[in-house]
């Protein structure tokens, strides 16, 4: 059974159609890179999956549970349970600026799952170590570099033990020399078979790490397949045009 199943997804903002009939499935352990020019609907698609946008139509199933079916959502409680199985990493990190790095990691599992004490602290420290920031646990986010902030944000998402991680242009707000450290963490996660959907402009990452690449254009998934297929033998003219522009 697919981890994520999207059928005929549509999203309108006013009379602007941002997503037109998007369907795809993601298997457990897949790393799907979503590429395409800005305004093609990549971010909106991600935001629909995790309930930050209400779909205008279509169905979303997460690991067999409906989030919405033919545009009708399940109850708020069911929705929350499904959303908690996913984590999301944002372009602008969205760390809590008034909380230390450690508290950023601990607050959600504490408030949402009632976890506390040494067990919670141990997981937080372990994840900080994993993203290479164990020595910054007591720091305030304002004192971190962009790359460090994004790594903290990834660790924070992992604290909720998600089965799926969504990345919305995780390196787009970073200085070029800082993208590497974030991509490295994501590469580690991919190696551990975390199911991931990554909206990205990093073609190198899409080519090397993704198990599948989806090219979006004008609210549709125009083409999808293995990275080498998309990058070396794109079927669609628009994919070719986009890729040649992205390389330049």
């Amino acid at each position, binding site marked *: 059974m697919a981890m994520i199943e999207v059928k005929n997804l549509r999203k309108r903002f006013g009379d602007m159609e941002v997503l037109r009939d998007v369907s795809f499935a993601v298997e457990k352990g897949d790393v799907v890179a979503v590429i395409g020019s800005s305004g093609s609907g990549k971010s909106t698609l991600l935001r629909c999956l*995790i*309930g*930050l946008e209400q779909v205008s139509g279509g169905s979303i199933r997460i690991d067999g549970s409906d989030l919405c079916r033919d545009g009708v959502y399940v109850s708020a409680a069911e929705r*929350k349970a499904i*959303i*908690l199985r*996913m*984590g*999301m990493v*944002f372009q*602008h990190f*969205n760390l*809590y*600026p*008034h*909380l230390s790095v450690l508290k950023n990691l601990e*607050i*959600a599992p504490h*408030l*949402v799952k009632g976890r506390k004490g040494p067990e919670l602290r141990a997981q937080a420290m372990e994840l900080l170590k994993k993203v290479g920031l164990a020595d910054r646990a007591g720091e*305030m986010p*304002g*004192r971190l570099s962009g790359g460090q902030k994004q790594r903290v944000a990834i660790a*924070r*998402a992992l604290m*909720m033990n998600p089965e799926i991680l969504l990345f919305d242009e995780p390196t787009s707000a970073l200085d070029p020399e800082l993208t590497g450290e974030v991509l490295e963490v994501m590469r580690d996660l991919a190696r551990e078979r975390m199911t991931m959907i990554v909206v990205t402009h990093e073609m190198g990452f899409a080519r090397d790490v993704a198990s599948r690449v989806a090219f979006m254009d004008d609210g549709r998934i125009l083409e999808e397949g293995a990275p080498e297929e998309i990058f070396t033998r794109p079927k669609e003219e628009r994919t070719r045009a986009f890729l040649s522009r992205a390389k330049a």
Partner: protein
Amino acid sequence: MDYIVRIIPALLRGAGVTLALFALVLPLSLPLGFLVTLCTTCRFKPVKWLAEAYIFVLRGTPLMLQLFFFYYGLPFLPGIGPYLRLSSFAASALSFTLNYAAYFAEIFRGGLLSIDRGQYEVSHVLGLTPFQTMTRIIIPQMIRVTLPSVGNEAITLVKDTALVASIALPELLHYTQGLVTRDFTTTPFLVAAFIYLLITFVVTLLFKFAERKANYE
């Protein structure tokens, strides 16, 4: 000097009322102001309109007029009027609280606007309830942004309490005026100014301290 020592007890009695008013109005008007802010963001339009009208009226009319309304005006309301005969202290506390709440509501609104939408989004994704998001994430950040403006209003409040002399509430300025007319000297004005400065100085210090506490960078 002798004269100053003699008038100090009366002035301090007045300052006590000033402080009592301040200490009552500030902690009441802050949460009320925040409640009004929340109402202005309410999706249910009538609540939003009511809150906006509240701010419009209370900010758009003189505080002195509001004071007169609650002290002299309320008892004339048809039907319930006779039950609304407030003491001058109660009328003062009530009108100041309502008036300052309107100003605080606008300050908090600005504070909320300054907080990035991403803070709400990530909280939603992490599973925080709207209440948890507000109390644990948004309000702490809003407090930091708004503290300087709130401190400014607090100092204005100290000085605005002098307005209640107009409904004969015996606070600092009321006693001062009495002494000036009785003794034909302006010295009490100077002493009163000094006492006001002392109070605002302490309030300034308190807010400086609070700002340092709330600063998280």
